[in-house]
């Protein structure tokens, strides 16, 4: 079971990367208005307003 001594630090690094990615995603508004894009088809295309 000595392999744990290597595997646990590896898992810690992987979790750290995961957490960093998650925080990056939240900061970049990836979780804002998750249902918004479904409504995009109802929006008029920008630029053709008189």
């Amino acid at each position, binding site marked *: 079971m000595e392999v744990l001594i290597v595997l646990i630090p590896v898992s*810690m690094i992987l*979790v750290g990367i*995961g*957490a960093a990615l*998650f*925080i990056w995603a939240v900061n970049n508004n990836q979780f804002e208005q998750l249902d918004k894009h479904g409504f995009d088809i109802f929006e008029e295309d920008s630029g053709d307003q*008189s």
Partner: protein
Amino acid sequence: MTISTISVSDMHCAACASKIRSALAGLQDVRATHINPVRRQVLVEHGDAIGTLDILSTIESAGFTPTLAGLDDHDARQRSLLKRLGVAGLAMMQVMMAAVALYAGHFEGMEAAYTRLLQYTSLVFTIPVICYSAMPFFTSALGSMRRGTALSMDVPVALAIAIAFATSLYHTLTGTGEVYYDSVVMFTFLLLGARYIGNRLQHRFDMTSHLLSALPRTATVERQENRISVPVSALVAGDMIWVSEGAQVPVDGELDTQTAALDEALLTGESDWVHKTAHDSIFAGTLNRGAAFRMRASRAFDQSRIADIAQLADQAAVKDAPITRLTDRVAGVFIPAVLGLAAFTFLAWQILSASPERALVAALTVLVVSCPCALSLATPAALTAAMTRLRQLGVVLTRGDALERALQVDRIYVDKTGTLTDDRPRITSVTCFEPAWPEADCLGLAAALQRYSSHPYARAFQAVATVRTFELTNVTTVTGGGVAGSLSAHQVRIGSAAFALDADTEDAADQAVFLSLDGAPLARFDMTNRIRPDAAAAVDALKQRGIEPVMLSGDSTERCAETARDLGIGFLARQTPEAKLAAIRADQAAGRTVLMLGDGINDVPVLAGADLSAAVVEASELVKSKADVLLLSRRLAPLVDLFRVAAATRHITHQNLIWAALYNLTAIPVAALGLMPPWLAALGMASSSILVMLNATRLLAAAPGTAPDGVAEMEA
């Protein structure tokens, strides 16, 4: 007097609310403070001696972060919460895996070296949870303890986390005893999750009740023959605005184009489209269901009717009902009691079992499980949801206890006859006097003349299909008389007997219209006001609830009797305001609870005399109205909705209170006896508050007119 509305994002419970209330009470010139813990809003009525800034700084020095209402940054708050939740979730997965291994090792035997490795692994993953994810609990608890007035919900939470972590850390470093890292991270994760979901639900309440957020931000304005897009806030009275097909009207104004079809549901709750003609008033927030039209703004955006409604609705939502204050006080004594109980549990276990381990676990579980969150949310959550739903149905409550009072009402006086009868009259019979002029020709000629009139009766003629058309010249309209015109060489007139026949006909009913040719009578049209199609159904629905509607009217006895007989209700005709008030007093003396449906402004003393007052209000009168309940459309049906929603609210409030009380009463003894693992306590506490909020959201779905299945069962 000024009213300041302030959002306090970190006011999580009733205990915080009472703390803010007492802090503001110390401020001079504060007349009244109303707090809604669900929407996290504080409404302060104050004199001119202090400003909004003073109030903000007072709340801030009480340890909270206040912002002016509307500026509260929900998104940023939720983003920060989501990050903390994510970190706690990832850490929880790792710590739970280690915990499973540790438990297995505990029963099956494990080398001490591996036990320590797993304990240190758990510690490494728990540190970010303590230092980052759980930080809001610690700061809030410390702030609350520094002031010491009333301890907030976060004190037992922070205490439980801190004690469990400190004990585990000590055991890990010394290599003795149990570790509780799994409980620490799980508790933090569940609590953050509950708070995240709670915020979302609260935001949903806000979004549905806050009308202004639904309005367009820009409008297309015609300036120097150019159409330009300007922010709605920059619009001024007199601007010519284009409203395209399907778009929302940005400000109040009058129609400039000939016709328009509008959906006023957002304002009145009435789903039928309304047809407007040139110079009719149109209101911000209504939807253009026809072709694009042009309108002239009559008021700036913040003075529009919808802004008034939003302001009224906000005030009512915050003006809390007496029952809310009661739960405030209960929660105020609850938290010290919880802390005492936890300490007692620890001591009792310590003495009886002489095992500090078990004593600690039991005490922590008691701390976690006994949070009175659900108890303090039970009533305000249901009230807020009910008010939001009623507003969508066209009913605005101006006071929080109106719903509680509505439940006692058993008689309604309807003083607003327009809610029972249609304002569009109908032709009941046509009497022709000249054989040369048959009925179809009379109607055709009348319709041709009435086209020029704006009198309500004229509309009835326009609805009639005409066989023959007549070419008229020299048409003039006489206010209070009728319409005159020339048909080839003859003079034709339509209108009252006095106008059309030049006769002083006393005996002619006031509800008849005469048509004449060169002064000789051609036809007589008897008119009547139709009973509104929904009035009969509404009256039936009221009667089913044991509420007796009675018509009050200043009109003559015969007209009243006819309408009242058709609807099957009682009536009192030729009523003066004094007589109306006397009728209400007599009923109250006989033990009835009376709702008076009146005219907002004219009937103030009569409305004030009733136990509950409702008014049909239009346009600019809104804010001036003193009624407890405002109906935004001329129909009786919203009043039925009021009683229905009131009954459903009482039911849901009771469910919530019973559930919260049962939860606390059963969970605390079980936890104190050490029969509940800490993770179950965390789950129970988090889910009980969410359950209470979710139960309240059922009110948002109450359908108009007919009760939805769930609500119908509940009322039975």
